[in-house]
C-alpha cells in the first residue's frame, strides 16, 4: 500500500512537470476508479467517456492546486469526476425549484430482490430515472452526501433534493416490482 502511494506521488510529481508519461501513468492507475464514478452519472458508455476525459483534463491542468495535507488524491479526483458528472447532467436538464418535500412515507423495496439482480441490471433501472432525480439518488444513496450538500452542489433547496430522492425511491420500487413480476 505504501509502495502504491509512493508511485502515485511520483506520478503527481511528473504531472506537475507536465510529463506526458507521468500523466498517462496516473490516468492508467485511476481509470477504473474514475470510470465507475463517471458511469453512475451517465446514460451510456459514451457519456461516461466524455465525463472521464473532461475530468482528467481538469486534473492535469489543476494538479498544482492539489494539496496532500487536505486529503488523499482519491478524494480529490472523486470530487472532480462527480462535479464533471453533475455538470454533464446540468447540461441536458434544468433543475426545477418548483417541487418541495418535507415528510413522506418511504416506499418499501425488497432487498432480497436487489441482491439477486446484477450490477448492470440495477444501473439500467437508475438510468431510467429523470436526470435530476438520477443525480440526487446517486449523490445520496451511492456517494453518501446529505441533502444539504446535494442542495449546495446542484443549486437547489434541501426540500427539492428530498422530493427528488422520494421520487427516485418510488420509481425504483415500481421498476423492481415490474421486473420481478413481469
Amino acid at each position, binding site marked *: 500500500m505504501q509502495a502504491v502511494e509512493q508511485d502515485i506521488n511520483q506520478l503527481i510529481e511528473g504531472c506537475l512537470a507536465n*510529463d506526458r508519461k507521468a500523466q498517462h501513468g496516473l*490516468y492508467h492507475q485511476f481509470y477504473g476508479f474514475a470510470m465507475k464514478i463517471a458511469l453512475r452519472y451517465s446514460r451510456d458508455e459514451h457519456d461516461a467517456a466524455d465525463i472521464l*476525459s473532461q475530468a482528467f483534463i481538469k486534473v*492535469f491542468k489543476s494538479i498544482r492546486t492539489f494539496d496532500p495535507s487536505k486529503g488523499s488524491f482519491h478524494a480529490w479526483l472523486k470530487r472532480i469526476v462527480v462535479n464533471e458528472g453533475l455538470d454533464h447532467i446540468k447540461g441536458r436538464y434544468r433543475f426545477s425549484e418548483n417541487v418541495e418535500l418535507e415528510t413522506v412515507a418511504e416506499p418499501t423495496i425488497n432487498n432480497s430482490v436487489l441482491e439477486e439482480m446484477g450490477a448492470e441490471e440495477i*444501473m439500467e433501472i437508475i438510468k431510467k430515472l429523470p436526470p435530476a432525480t438520477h443525480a440526487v439518488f446517486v449523490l445520496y*444513496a451511492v456517494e453518501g452526501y446529505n441533502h444539504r450538500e446535494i442542495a449546495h452542489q446542484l443549486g437547489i433547496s434541501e426540500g427539492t433534493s428530498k422530493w427528488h430522492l422520494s421520487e427516485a425511491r418510488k420509481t425504483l420500487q415500481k421498476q423492481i416490482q415490474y421486473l420481478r413480476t413481469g
Partner: protein
Amino acid sequence: MNQKLTYEQTIAGKLEILPLPDMEAAIWKRIEFQLDIDMPSEGDVDATQPPRLPKPGPLMLGAISIVFLTALLVYSILTKEQTTTKKITHPTTAPFIVPKKEDPDPPPFGKKVQQPSQSMKTGITPTLRQLDSNSYAQPTIIPPDSNALIKDRGDVIIIPPAAAKKDSEPNIKKKKGVSGLTDEDYRIEPRKKDSLP
C-alpha cells in the same frame, strides 16, 4: 428520509462491481490530444502539426532589414518620378506652344511653313477622352487666334503660361478705357429747366 435504506446500501455495493468498458486507450487519446493543444509538453513533437520555422537569427534579421530598406528606396524613387511626370503633363492652365529654341533652321519671319490644323482654323478644341482614372489623353489645346506654328509634336515643348510670359512677352501697359472716348463724354449735366416742354 435522511437515513440510507438497506436496499440503497445494496445498490451502492452493486455499483462498485460494475464492469468497466474497454475504452481506456480511446479516452486517453482524446485526453492527450486536448493536452497537446492546451498544455504542450517540451519533448513532444506532434506529427500532425506543420514543422515550425527556425527562430530568426541576427543574419536573418539583417537580410530582412536590407530587403525592406531596398523596397522602401525603390518605392520612394518611383513615387518621386511619378510626381515629376504629373507636374509636366498636367498643367493647370492652357499652355503656350512654342517652337524649340534649338531648332537648327527656324522659319523666316512672315513665311508660312505649315498650315494649322482644322481645329485651329475652326477654333474647336479637340474632345478629351479619359480612358481610365490613372491615364489621361494629353490634349493639345491651342487658342483659335494662335499664330504658333506646329510642325510636329516632337518639335514642340510646352511651357506654362507664367514661365512663357516672363521669357517671350515684353511688359507693355495696356490702355485703359475705350479708344475715342474722353472723360468729357462721361460727364452728366442736369438739363436746363428752360428746355423742358
